[in-house]
């Protein structure tokens, strides 16, 4: 799982750097030479569309999706484990729901052969397919993880559930930051 997150992050980071280069070039050309490559905005939108849906997976693996844990910390450990399972399952259901409503978009794009209303006239199906694939991956990973959470809960491995699925506490986040600092 960790490796998947690393590779998605690399892809995402590389795409952002590429986008930065492209946008910077475009801005300079536009202001200094009064010409334009066009499409920097459009490219930015596509990078985000694919990047964000793929980044949902990274946030999922790193337990970063925001949950409010004021009460959560006060429940008995067993209740907490069940809630953790329900929480990751609910993310899976959310993923499936996104796929469901996203499908309307894909169908429309295919049946109208939509292209972007820009100089590039990008056939929208390409960026949308990448976006949809990202969403599908998010749904698949969260469902797979909720299966794991359920097995752990049923097997009574409560500590492991907490370790893998509880929201990150401030202490854990801080410990990570300090690790990074000492690694320098």
């Amino acid at each position, binding site marked *: 799982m960790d490796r998947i*997150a*690393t590779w*998605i*992050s*690399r892809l995402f*980071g*590389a795409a*952002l*750097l590429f*986008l*930065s280069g492209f*946008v*910077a070039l475009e*801005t300079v050309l536009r202001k200094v030479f009064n010409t334009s490559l066009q499409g920097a*905005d459009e490219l*930015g*939108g596509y*990078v*985000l*569309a694919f*990047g*964000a849906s*793929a*980044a949902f997976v*990274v*946030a*999922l693996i*790193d337990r*970063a*999706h*925001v*949950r*409010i*844990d*004021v009460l959560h910390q006060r429940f008995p450990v067993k209740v907490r484990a069940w809630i*953790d399972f*329900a*929480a990751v399952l*609910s*993310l899976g*259901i*959310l993923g499936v*729901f996104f796929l*469901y*409503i996203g*499908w*309307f*978009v894909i169908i429309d794009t295919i049946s109208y052969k939509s292209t972007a209303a820009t100089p590039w006239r990008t056939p929208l199906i390409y960026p*949308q397919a990448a*976006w949809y694939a990202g969403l599908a991956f998010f749904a698949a990973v969260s469902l797979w993880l909720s299966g794991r959470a359920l097995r752990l809960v049923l097997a009574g491995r409560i500590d492991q559930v907490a370790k893998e699925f509880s*929201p990150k506490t*401030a*202490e854990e*986040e*801080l*410990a990570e*930051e*300090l690790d*990074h600092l000492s690694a*320098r």
Partner: protein
Amino acid sequence: MSILDVTIGFVTMMGLLMIGFPVAVVMVAMGVLGGMILYGPVLLKSMGPVLWGVSNENVLTAIPLFILLGELLLRSGLADRMYGALALWLGRLPGGLLHTNIGACSLFAATSGSSVATAATVGTVALPALGERGYDPARSLGTLAAGGTLGILIPPSVNLLIYGSLASVSVGQLFVAGIIPGILLTLTFMGFVVLESLWRRSRGLPDASKLEEKLPLKDRLRALVHLVPAAVVFLIVMGSIYMGIATPTESAALAVLVALLFVWREGRLSFAFLDVCFRQTAKTTGMILLIIAAAFTLNVTLALGGITGVISNWVAGLGLAPTGLLFALVVFYLILGMFMDVLSMQVLTIPIVVPIVVAAGIDPIWFGIFVVLMSELGMITPPVGMNLYVVQGVRTDGGPFSDVIRGAIPYAVIMLLFTILLILVPQIVMWLPQSLMG
């Protein structure tokens, strides 16, 4: 649809949130449930294009770019040396290194949006030095916790971007509007440190057992080099937005390239370094964008179902003057901030509250700064005050948590008073963006 239905919906939502379901899931679930009751399945069809629209929104592309920018500068060690350079200039004021804490945090803030990373980095550099010189722990910890919150007010700020997209107001103008309040609040914090020091001195208590030595001007000038990267990045971002050369997204892209250059000159550019930055960026982006996507999905129901209208009318029926409304919101956000993290608080309230205040004749740009200030306050009010835990976690002397709270309280009070000042004198926020629009 009556105010009662809305209340029932709101209470259900808060219940699910408090149990510990992911905020994004709860928002979408409420949106779908409400939509099904009001309209039936037709509404779901209109959520698809909204979801694609959010994902493909060029303004939001600035979010990962600004996060990456902060990561690059923060993790390259450029930031650590800023502290040393600032100490040479601020360390001899009454209050000594405490000013350096606030100054370093606000400079960091000008480049990074993450308060955890900011408070952790500055804290790790600062706390050993402060302890060695015998500063009062509560004062040290308080300045760090409060200083760390400045990150979300001083542009570039990811929180202002989020506000801009949810309230559909110009992010460029929000950034420009954040500058003066950000600087003023920093100076007010420092002013408090000075007053506190003078008061302590009058009672025979020094700031620390060991004060900073005065270095020759030449050395101090040389140290300014370490402030260059932060200053350049800030000037690129704000300069290009203010002069109208670039949109916030374009300015972020330019700044990322320049930051890469600084990292490379520093000899830090490596795959391992980029790996850490990319991973953090992807994680934070995924977290923020899932919540924003959820907020927009919920908005479909809120807007089409006329729910914001119901609430606006109800509030209008109370007959509050704008100032009264704002004071009520101060109390509302103060309480919410005690229990919620900044991001959840913003996405849950902005879509509903902004139409209300706009109907009352309050400028949405001004209100953006207000919301961010109240979020800052939320970061240092217990029990859920992220920054309090962070600085407590960084300290190595093993003292009690009550030190942090005791140290942070004066700053929380200052922020409240500062917010009230902005309510009474809104021009502090509006002057710069209005001069920009001409």
